């Protein structure tokens, strides 16, 4: 790995923030996942689990503080040409594979110092077996500097059951709010979640200053919790949060209570949802006071298991919650325990409706989340905050809008990785996505959803007209989608069924499909199949045992020539009316006895013949008065303000309304229109490279005395790692976004 750069075209941000030309080192990634940094001599080393290759990659990041003018310090011994380069393999064009084995998934960097005060960190890697791999970072760095040197052997600690996650409780530098190392010779607690236990480790160095096997301090049983991720309060080993992959929300466990047997747990609800990822807020600054650390949780919740008729399947999303822990106001915490209330209600409000999970307006599943470092206000430049910010909020994010002031400051940002390959930023106190359109025009005007003109599929002079009420649209509720309203629509999931038709003794027809139970369609309120709906025959098979007249009737028929009303129905059959001849118009009324095979297309009819689709999901039928109210699941609270008298409660989540003027006569004809949400969540992804498509799984924030804030996202499905500088993103084609492959 000579540092030969490959030129990558990548794009940042979802919306309009394209570009980024990034120089990156070759990491030869195969399904990268978790990452974490530790110190090693004069630099940090970011270890990235390269799960497809049973090993770790080690990215070097110089970490010595810059001078106040932003220049490198003369005392900095970290060579600039290793910054952003992987520790090389013996054949130096390749990145070193640190073979931990057993598909490492999660990594914890433990920041330790030797007795001489130099950084000698350790990486703990958890994978698919019952061991934790212990990697000596310092020896890896020294191996590349000293010809003939070999790195320390990887050590393995058996923790008794398959590991799920590992995290270290590194100290924080109180002046800079970045991780720092333990006192020389001291140990640092680390926590391992296995499938059944929470294990507390004491991680330290041996007498020679090298990694040694951690000591198991204590453990406790997590049942009934099924752990998915764990988190600690930045800078504190006193409390551990465990995301529950089966139960509701997360549980907190006081470290000192861990002493064998069942864990003493306190549960924080996520509104009944299980959680796939949890993060704890750092210390943060909002211009009023200094918060935390540890007063907020970010929970990435699983999709709801149950389907709701007439709604698309829930995607889960991001919830923010208070922990109830507020050292500055312990008896009246600013963020009481529990999921945030909906805006505009203040965080202390515990009675108002809780927020809905935040998700993208167009699809995708949130996978992992993390808080970013909150930049403290200062009057003078102090590395890594070279640009002074006198009053909070001071945490910059390049939004790209408006063009005259594209960078905005926030008090606390979070970021989440999504299955679409992107990573998206959240304005945490305002419980919403960072949204470029919020800044595009005054008065939230650009947040308004946009509707295309409905197009009727069979244009004619007498065609009906659809009128969408744009004022009924609600930013944060109205999704991106393509909608249809079809008159005499085929019923989804049932549309065409083969069966047998027989005449009855009272002038009707009985259609009996094979192996079909109509009950689900009758019971689904969005479809409500019932007498009054129609059947149209698309194919006929004459039964040779029936009279010739019957056979003749059937063989002369053409597909879908007419519709017959459903007069009555059971779970397994439909009684259909016949169609009389009217003048020269030939009906359909086979003389009894008659029996034939047919393929029936079941269509909506009666007083509600219009069926409305959002994508492939049937939303419901247009009411008899030709109006329709489209309810959708809220995915964001994007407005700058909300009226307390008219808060965005779930029961009022109306995406839009429309009505249809005029009558239609052409079965299966209808309207098609597209809806654009009006939301432009700010994020980054790689839309040009081979890894298009992505599937991001893990997001790792990084800060140091030199680096104000970086975000590393593992694009696991695309075999690359993206490094984003939130303050730059698409504004800097070199440093804003870098892809490692």
């Amino acid at each position, binding site marked *: 790995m000579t540092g030969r750069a490959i030129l990558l075209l990548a794009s940042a941000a979802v919306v309009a923030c394209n570009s980024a030309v990034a120089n990156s080192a070759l990491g030869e990634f195969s399904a990268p996942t978790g990452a974490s940094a530790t110190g090693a001599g004069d630099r940090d080393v970011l270890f990235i689990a390269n799960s497809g290759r049973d090993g770790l990659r080690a990215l070097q990041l110089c970490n010595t503080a810059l001078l106040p003018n932003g220049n490198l310090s003369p005392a900095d011994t970290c060579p600039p040409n290793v910054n952003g380069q992987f520790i090389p393999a013996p054949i130096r064009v390749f990145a070193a594979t640190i073979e931990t084995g057993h598909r490492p998934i999660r990594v914890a960097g433990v920041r330790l110092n030797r007795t001489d005060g130099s950084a000698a960190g350790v990486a703990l890697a958890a994978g698919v077996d019952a061991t934790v791999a212990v990697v000596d970072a310092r020896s890896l760095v020294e191996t590349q500097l000293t010809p003939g040197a070999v790195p320390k052997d990887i050590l393995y600690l058996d923790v008794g059951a398959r590991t799920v996650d590992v995290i270290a409780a590194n100290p924080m530098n109180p002046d800079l709010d970045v991780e720092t190392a333990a006192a020389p010779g001291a140990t640092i607690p680390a926590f391992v979640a296995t499938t059944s236990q929470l294990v507390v480790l004491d991680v330290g160095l041996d007498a020679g200053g090298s990694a040694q096997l951690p000591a198991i301090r204590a453990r406790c049983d997590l049942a009934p919790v099924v752990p998915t991720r764990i988190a600690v309060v930045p800078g504190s080993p006193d409390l551990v949060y465990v995301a529950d992959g089966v139960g509701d929300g997360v549980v907190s466990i006081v470290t000192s209570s861990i002493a064998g047997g069942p864990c003493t747990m306190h549960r924080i609800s996520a509104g009944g949802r299980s959680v796939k990822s949890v993060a704890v807020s750092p210390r943060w600054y909002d211009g009023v006071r200094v918060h935390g650390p540890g007063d907020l949780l970010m929970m990435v919740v699983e999709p709801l298991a149950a389907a709701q008729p007439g709604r698309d399947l829930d995607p889960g999303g991001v919830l923010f919650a208070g922990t109830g822990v507020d050292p500055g106001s312990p008896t009246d915490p600013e963020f009481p325990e529990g999921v945030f209330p909906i805006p505009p209600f203040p965080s202390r409000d515990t009675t108002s409706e809780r927020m809905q999970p935040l998700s993208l307006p167009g699809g995708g599943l949130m996978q992992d989340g993390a808080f970013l470092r909150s930049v403290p206000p200062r009057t003078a430049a102090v590395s890594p905050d070279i640009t002074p910010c006198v009053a909070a909020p001071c945490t910059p994010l390049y939004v790209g809008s408006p063009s005259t002031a594209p960078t905005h400051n926030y008090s606390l940002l979070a970021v989440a990785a999504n299955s679409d390959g992107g990573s998206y930023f959240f304005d945490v106190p305002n419980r919403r996505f960072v949204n470029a359109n919020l800044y595009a025009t005054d008065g939230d005007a650009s947040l308004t959803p946009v509707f295309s003109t409905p197009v009727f599929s069979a244009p004619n002079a007498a065609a009906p007209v659809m009128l969408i009420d744009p004022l009924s649209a609600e930013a944060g509720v109205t999704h991106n989608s393509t909608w249809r309203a079809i008159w005499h629509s085929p019923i*989804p999931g049932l549309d065409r069924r083969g069966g047998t038709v027989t005449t009855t003794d009272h002038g009707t027809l009985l259609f009996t499909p094979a192996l079909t139970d109509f009950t689900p369609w009758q019971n689904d309120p969005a479809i409500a199949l019932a007498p009054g709906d129609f059947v149209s025959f698309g194919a006929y098979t004459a039964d040779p045992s029936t009279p010739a007249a019957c056979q003749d009737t059937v063989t002369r028929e053409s597909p879908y020539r007419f519709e017959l009303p459903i007069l009555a129905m059971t779970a397994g059959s439909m009684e259909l009316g016949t169609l009389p001849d009217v003048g020269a118009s030939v009906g359909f009324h086979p003389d009894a006895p008659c029996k034939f095979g047919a393929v029936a297309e079941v269509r909506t009819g009666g007083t509600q013949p219009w069926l409305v689709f959002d994508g492939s999901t049937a939303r419901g039928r247009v009411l008899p008065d030709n109006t329709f109210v489209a309810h959708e699941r809220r995915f964001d609270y994007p407005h700058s303000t909300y009226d307390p008298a008219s808060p965005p409660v779930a029961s009022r989540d109306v995406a839009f309304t429309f009505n249809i003027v005029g009558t239609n006569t052409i079965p299966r004809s209808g309207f098609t229109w597209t809806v654009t949400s009006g939301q432009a969540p700010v994020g980054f992804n790689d839309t040009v490279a081979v890894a298009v498509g992505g599937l991001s799984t893990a997001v790792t924030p990084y800060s140091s005395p030199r680096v104000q804030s970086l975000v590393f996202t593992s694009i696991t499905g695309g075999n690359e790692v993206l490094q984003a500088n939130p303050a730059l993103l698409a504004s800097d084609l070199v440093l804003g976004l870098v892809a490692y492959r």
Partner: protein
Amino acid sequence: MKKSLVLLAALTAGCSTDPPQFLPPPFGPSGPSPIRLFFPTGLAKTSEGHLLVANGNFNHAFDGGTVVGISRSYLDSVFLLRSAANAKLDCGLATTDPGFDARCSQQIPQEQFTGAAMIGNYAGPLVLDGTGAAAYTGSRDSGTLNGVRIDPGVRVDAAGTLHCLPGAGDDATKDCRKGVIDLQPFGVDGPYGMVAGDTVFPGETTPHPALFVASLIPHIEDISSGVISTSSSVAVLNLQDPSQVFFRLQVAQAFDISNGTAPGPIVFDRVRREIYLSGCYQRAASFGAGEPGTGLCVGSSNNFLRMMNVDSGTAASTVWVDLRSDVLSTFTTQLLLADPDPVTGAPGTLWATMRNPDALVRIGLPSEPSVAPRVRQAIPLPIAPADMALIDRGSASALIAVASQNSNSLAVVDTASGDVVAQVGRLGDSPFNVAQISCPASADYADSACLAVSVFGACRVALIEVSKTQPAATAVRALLGSCP
């Protein structure tokens, strides 16, 4: 006179314009030769537990492929091999590892093959009929459905247990390359994905066993001004006699939402009476020389799941659900139905292995008909996932084993947690298909599932043990066969 006849015969032979035949082993290429594996793809377990392997002949070294059988007793014996320390063999070690046992990598003894029969090229998945008396696979270069009859027993006689089906070739020479039926007249130009199921004809009430065969190659309908119009069909064959076509289902037409593209894998939902298809293949002049070739869809912005009712005959229509807003793949390599509803038996989950991004995707199949299927979970996998197999664990969550074609490995996923709980490597170049086979009747394997994986580029089958109680203990137990 006799000499004249001999001379005449020699001259006649010398004037023959027939090209020489390079029959696949064991039938050639120059006289009988040992049975072996070459580009193995499809796998199937017979009712007696033998393993059938389809050899694809992808490099056209021979004039056809083969289907061969490997006896269960041999597979059992390999699983039961013990090291000097009386431990099961761990064949996932590097061959240079001191712990690697030489018996891990072995040739299959000739007497352990239960038979061999010639088929066409490019064999794909291997599907058994309902009784286990026949196996089928498609040949994409000829549009032929290959069929092999499976006789009971280990090796009835020197001819083995595999034979040509009636009308599918010359059973005397085991040359079944003629195939059961040419599917090209039915719009199935490149048969690949296939699944056994049933269909009820309109006007009838009794299901007919059926073989649904999808085409990887779109059928050219028209070329106008250099623009290719294609369609794609599924042939619905009589499973009891696949030379009979019940009807064809048109899963894509030139001017529908898919632009006439062809799907890859196919599965059958007996309760909903539907087939599900996914993936996207298109024809383009740039893919071929002369005739337009077939390749993965380029520039597609959709990831369609296609669904069709199987009881409507040719009147069935395709229902499309685009999964791309959740997972940006266009390349599905396998589908698998799971999680049957305890009351109706309708599957609640459709698993899909997808590439770019490489993932195992859980698609929810709601019981509410108004709600469209949607991705519920995307689990990242090692590079280029291919086939998969579901491992039932009773009351515990099922496992799914996924072959990873470009990392020479097999990953095991716990369907409850969505975690990869085991990964074994060093299977060889391009693991492709996975089949669950019977484990030895030994206490050592009482809580295990046994898998066979065809390793395409290494001319071998890998045998893998998955512990149902401790999946992390999944291990490679043998690597059978090798390329010459």
